[in-house]
Structures are given as structure tokens and as C-alpha cells.
């Protein structure tokens, strides 16, 4: 097996104080516009939503102080708890499935002819607008749709997908659209692994799974962990896909399909006559934000490895 060289962190010392100072100044000047914009458009509103979450507010009249009441209510609110469970289902079960499928496709496509074309095909669902997918899947999964016709054709019971299992259909749709994206990212990471590692492994008698475990995974680990963080953040923000599947331009999707992002919309601007409950919605946004932070920190900690240079 080829020897892998571990990267050592190099601390550059001994540079003159003037250069250091100039670099620092240049850094500040270059970073300042981004910091200002980021503060105005992200940090400020985030802090503001913490403040709003402690109030009852219709967005127009004066806020009324509620302390932590919004949070207490949220933890007793069946609709929010169901939305939170759905969010976790997408994050954890969805993430597991997306990455398992991505790795499986990676293994299958690594040595196949026409892999670039196959990669484009797998990536394709990711570029289709959710509204188009929802229309298409509406036809596929309706009681007299193609899926049930196929199931009936082989003598299986045809379930009422859209009536009884809508969240499952949405869940599968999310897996289907996202897998191609992660396959593409992971494939880009594995493409840069030199072929001679695999050739040496083959000579040593390693099978595809062993090659995957001992070469592909360690050498693409930094990309895998970054992809995991991207999934964590994006899965908590899923909105348009659920909305397109279950709702119309006027009507919100049924509550059993809501995640926290749809819940926030439902408490503010969603529906035929919106609720405009900004304090309550902000509290749920705060809980979602804190969840993202906790999950990302945990994930970074669990997936921390020394990077490998090759």
C-alpha cells in the first residue's frame, strides 16, 4: 500500500513586524465590506429575531413582552413538534440515505464506462424546479397514476400515496433530488485520488469495498465532512419542495408534511388569511437556528480527522 503523507501544520514565524502589520491591515480592509454586509443582513436580523421571539407581535403594532412564553408554548404545540420531528427525519434519516446512496453510486460508477454521462443523469433531478417535480410526481403517485398501475400490474396492493403517505413521497423526492448533488461533489473529491493507489491495492488483493474503506474514504474525508455540514444546513432549510408538493399558491400544505421552515411561513405570511404571528414564528426560528448550530458542531466534532495530503 502506498505511503500516505500526513500534513503537518506549519506555523510561519519570523516574518518582520512591518509585513505582519501590513498584512493585517490589508486583511481588515478587504474583509470589512463583507463583514459590514454580513452584519447588516445576517447577524443583525438574527439577533433581532431573538428579541422578537420574546414578544407577541403582528408586524405592525407595538410588540408585547411575553418572556419565554413563546418557547414554552412551542414545546407543547403538537403542530410545531410534528414539524420538528419531520425536520429531524429529513436531516438524520434523509442524510443517512443520501450519503449511503451517494457512496453506493460512487462505488458503482468509479470504474464504469461513460461515468461522466451517468453523473450528469444522476445530477439532473437537482436542477429541475420543485414545482415541475411536484406536478410530475402528482401524476406518478396519484391513485390511478403510473406507480400504482405498475404495482397493480405485478399483483401488489396499490397504496394511496398522496392521501395517506404524502410525507413519505416528499421524503423520497428529497432523497432523489439531492443524491445527484452529493454524488457529484464526492466524485469530484475521489477523481483527484491518484489511480496508482487503487492499482497498488488491487495488486495487494483488496476488493472494491476494501479499496473504498482504505483509500476512497480516508482521502476524501475532508470533502465528506464538508458535504455533511452542507446537508445539515440545507436539510433544515427545505421549504419550496414541501410547499410545491402539498400546497397551492393560496393554500399551505397539510400540517403533517410541515417542517420547521414551513411552520415559520405558516405562522407569518402563509395561507389564505395569514396569521402574522411574528413573535411565535421567531421563537420557532430561534429553535431551528440553535438546532443547526448544535448539529453542525456535533458533526464537526464527530467527523474531525487530521487531513491527509497526497
Amino acid at each position, binding site marked *: 500500500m502506498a505511503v500516505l503523507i500526513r500534513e503537518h501544520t506549519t506555523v510561519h514565524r519570523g516574518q518582520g513586524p512591518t509585513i505582519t502589520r501590513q498584512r493585517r491591515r490589508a486583511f481588515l480592509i478587504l474583509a470589512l465590506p463583507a463583514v459590514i454586509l454580513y452584519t*447588516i*443582513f*445576517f447577524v*443583525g*436580523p*438574527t439577533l*433581532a*429575531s431573538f*428579541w*422578537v421571539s420574546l414578544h407577541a407581535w*403582528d*408586524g*405592525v*403594532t*407595538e*410588540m408585547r413582552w411575553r418572556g419565554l412564553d413563546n418557547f414554552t*408554548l412551542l414545546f*407543547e404545540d*403538537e*403542530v410545531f413538534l410534528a414539524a420538528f420531528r419531520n425536520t429531524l427525519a429529513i436531516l438524520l434519516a434523509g442524510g443517512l440515505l443520501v450519503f449511503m446512496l451517494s457512496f453506493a453510486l460512487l462505488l458503482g460508477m468509479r470504474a464504469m464506462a461513460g461515468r461522466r454521462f451517468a453523473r450528469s443523469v444522476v445530477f439532473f433531478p437537482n436542477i429541475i424546479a420543485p414545482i415541475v417535480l411536484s*406536478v410530475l410526481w*402528482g*401524476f406518478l403517485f*396519484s*391513485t*390511478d*397514476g403510473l406507480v400504482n398501475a405498475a404495482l397493480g400490474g405485478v399483483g401488489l396492493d396499490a397504496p*394511496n*400515496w*398522496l*392521501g*395517506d403517505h404524502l410525507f413519505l413521497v416528499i421524503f423520497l423526492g428529497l432523497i432523489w433530488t439531492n443524491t445527484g448533488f452529493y454524488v457529484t461533489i464526492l466524485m469530484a473529491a475521489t477523481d483527484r485520488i491518484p489511480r496508482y493507489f487503487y492499482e497498488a491495492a488491487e495488486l495487494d488483493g483488496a476488493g472494491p469495498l476494501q479499496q473504498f474503506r482504505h483509500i476512497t474514504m480516508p482521502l476524501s474525508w475532508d470533502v465528506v465532512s464538508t458535504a455533511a455540514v452542507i446537508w445539515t444546513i440545507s436539510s433544515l*432549510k427545505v*421549504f419550496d419542495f414541501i410547499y410545491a*408538493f402539498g400546497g*397551492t*399558491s*393560496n*393554500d*399551505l400544505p*397539510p400540517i*403533517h408534511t410541515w417542517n420547521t*421552515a414551513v411552520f*415559520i*411561513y*405558516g405562522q*407569518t*405570511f402563509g*395561507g*389564505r*388569511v*395569514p*396569521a*402574522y*404571528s*411574528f413573535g411565535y*414564528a*421567531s421563537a420557532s*426560528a430561534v429553535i431551528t*437556528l440553535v438546532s443547526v448550530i448544535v448539529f453542525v458542531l456535533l458533526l464537526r466534532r464527530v467527523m474531525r480527522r487530521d487531513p491527509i495530503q497526497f
Partner: protein
Amino acid sequence: MMRRSVSHRLPRAMVILAAVAVTASACGIEGTKNSKVGAPEPGETITYWSMWEENEPQATVIKEAITAFTKETAIQVKVEWQGRKVLQKLTPALRSGDVPDLVDQDGNSVRGAMVANGQHHDLSAVMSAQVPGEGKTVAEVGPGRYRDLITDSAGKPFLVPYEALGYGIFYNGAKHPELAAASPATWDDFIAMLDGRKAKVALDGDIGSYAALWTVHALGAELGAGKVRELAADKTGGAWSGPQVRPALERIEKLAKGGYFAPGSFGSKFPAMQEKWAAGQADFLLMGSWAPSETQKSAPQDFQYRALPFPGMSAVQAAVIGFAVPKRAAHPAAAERFIASFMKKERMQGLATVALNITTRPDIPAPEQLADIARQLTNKPVTPFYEGLDTLGTYPIEVFEPVHTEFLSGKITAAEFVTRLGEKQAEFWKKNS
């Protein structure tokens, strides 16, 4: 998302709110004394945020009315075609004070976005103003008929409606020609008619509010105007167990379990079922007056849109679309004058002939495909769409519709519906108290 859009103004919020509190109260006092009310200056410009998109036929009609109004009065109207989410866009503006002079949307939406927070302008003066050249007031030419749908808690109108939307059980008159002369008067007649024809009812049951139309209508027919909302507003949820509710729920239970809904009604995606109905695969569709315009592409050439009144219902569920003026509008008098001028028959006529809608003026004939609905709106008392449940915040989507769809699709009985709805409702009001 929401978190960002509502709160990025917050650093200024305290100052603005304090300023708003002072100026709003000052405006409130001035509003009645304002010498400009009723006497706008020529050359003024009013800003109008419209619920229509610029390419919609309603926009064409409104544009022509604006041109004529400006020619008459020298008041300019600057239109922003905001589309259906106009009131969602208005909400942050209401706080900042940079509001348009005129908006339009349906009555319940305006009630939620502007009336609930006291940001509406009292339009009593417009309702009693003369429609130019007609010798009648705005209320008298038609809008006054919808007074119950457009007044605030003090009984003052917050909206001047120009379009009316009514509900009915649509069918193809070419397929069922004899129904026009003999529509079922009672629920039993209606079920007998369905049985006799082996007819199917189409429903896009994935839209909770469409499914709810059946039960809310049945309850409205049984209990009378305003009572369904009282049931929903009961904090304990126990009101649903009352004996007066039972007959209507039993009727719906029989409808649900009797196989009257066309296959796919609870297992497809909107608008699949209304398309199937238009294509002749089902016979009836309980829907609002937009049904013909939404389905005509799927309907055969000889399709005749007719609509039965909901059996046993002495009133008709209706919604209205009209103009409202924000409380802090800079040019309320000019906006009011525009509204009065728009109510002229010649200005509104295009809404029927070009946009194919029912206007609030009974002297403007409705498009042929909506004639049955228009007749109901003219001859019967009107009651709010959805019996006003949609003005109870998230109650319909969080409480009523999930339980109700289970009921209408035959998964739970009427007794289970009452129990589950009562429990959910009590939880909801505890949360929203």
C-alpha cells in the same frame, strides 16, 4: 427568510414605533377633521398597489378606468401590479409608514392584514358618496349589499367591493339539462338526485379548505349565519358536541361513506379532480365562481357551466374583492374619489365582459357561465366564505382541516370527528389565548 425580512428593520424599530405611536394617534384624530377628505387637489398622485398582475384582464379594465379618472380629475394614479401577495408586501410598509394610498384584495385578507391591527381607513364616506353621473350612492349601486362582509367591529366599512365570488355546486348543463328547472331543494333531494343519476362528486381533497366546503356549507345550512364560527371560537371545543350540530354531521358522514366522491378525490394532486370533472369523468364540483375560468381548457366545447345552490341553504357563501385605504395613506381623499369613480357602471362593466367576473353591481349582467351563481348572490342573503373560519388565524389549517379531511374521506365517524376536533380546538385556543 421570514426571520430576516421582518426583523432587519428592528434596530430602528423602537424609534419608528414610538414615532408611529405618536403620529398614528395624531392621524387618527386628524382623520375625521382632515379638510382634504372629499376634496383632493388636482395634480395629486395616488399610489395604488394592485392584487392583479399586469397581464391579467382585470388589470386591463383597471388601467382603462385609471386613464378615464385622470382625464376627469387630473389626479394621477401610480399603479404597482403587486399580485396576490400584495397584503403580505404591505405589512412591513404599514410599520414603516411608507404606505400606498390604495390597495385591493379579498375582504377576509384585508381584515387579517389591515383591520385586525387597526390600520384601515373608514370608508363610510365613499359608501355614501355619489357615483359620478348616476344619482345614486356607491352603497346603493351594489356594494352595500355586502355590508356584513366588509365592516369592522365598529360597523364601519373597511372595503368597497367591486367583485363578488359566490359558491355553488357546478355541473355541466349539457349533461344534466333538467336540473336547471328542478334543482334539489333539500339535502335528501340532493342525495336522491345523486343516487338516481349514479352521479359522482369531484373533490380535490388534498386542499383542506376545498374539502371543508362540504361540511361548512352543511353546518351553515343547518345552523344559520355566523353559528359555525361560534362553534370554532369556543375555547373548550365542547360546542361541537351540541345536539344541533349532529344532523349536519350525520349527512356528511353518509356522503363520505356512501361512495359519492369520484375515485381519486382523496388521493391526487390539485387540480387533477376538477380537471377530471371538466372532462366529464365526474358530475358535480362544489367550488367558488372561479371554477369555469380554471377548468375551461379541459372542458369540451359544448360544456355548459351551471351551478346548483347548496341544498337547504337559505343564504349563499360569498367573498368580495375590493378597494381598501390604509389608515396612514398620504392621499386618502384622492383614493376615495378614485374608488367612487370606479364604481360607475361603464368603468366596472369590463370586469364582467373582459375579465369574466361577477361584479358587485347587479345591473351589470354576469358572464353566462356564472349566471346561476350571480342569481344566488342577487336573490339570497350573503354569508362569509368558509363561514369566516379563515379569519381565526391558523385555526383552519392546524385544527379544522386535518381532522375534517379524515372525516370526509371516511376514515373517522362523525362522533370521532367531534371528539378529535374538540380536543384539537381546546389545545389551539389554549395556545392562542
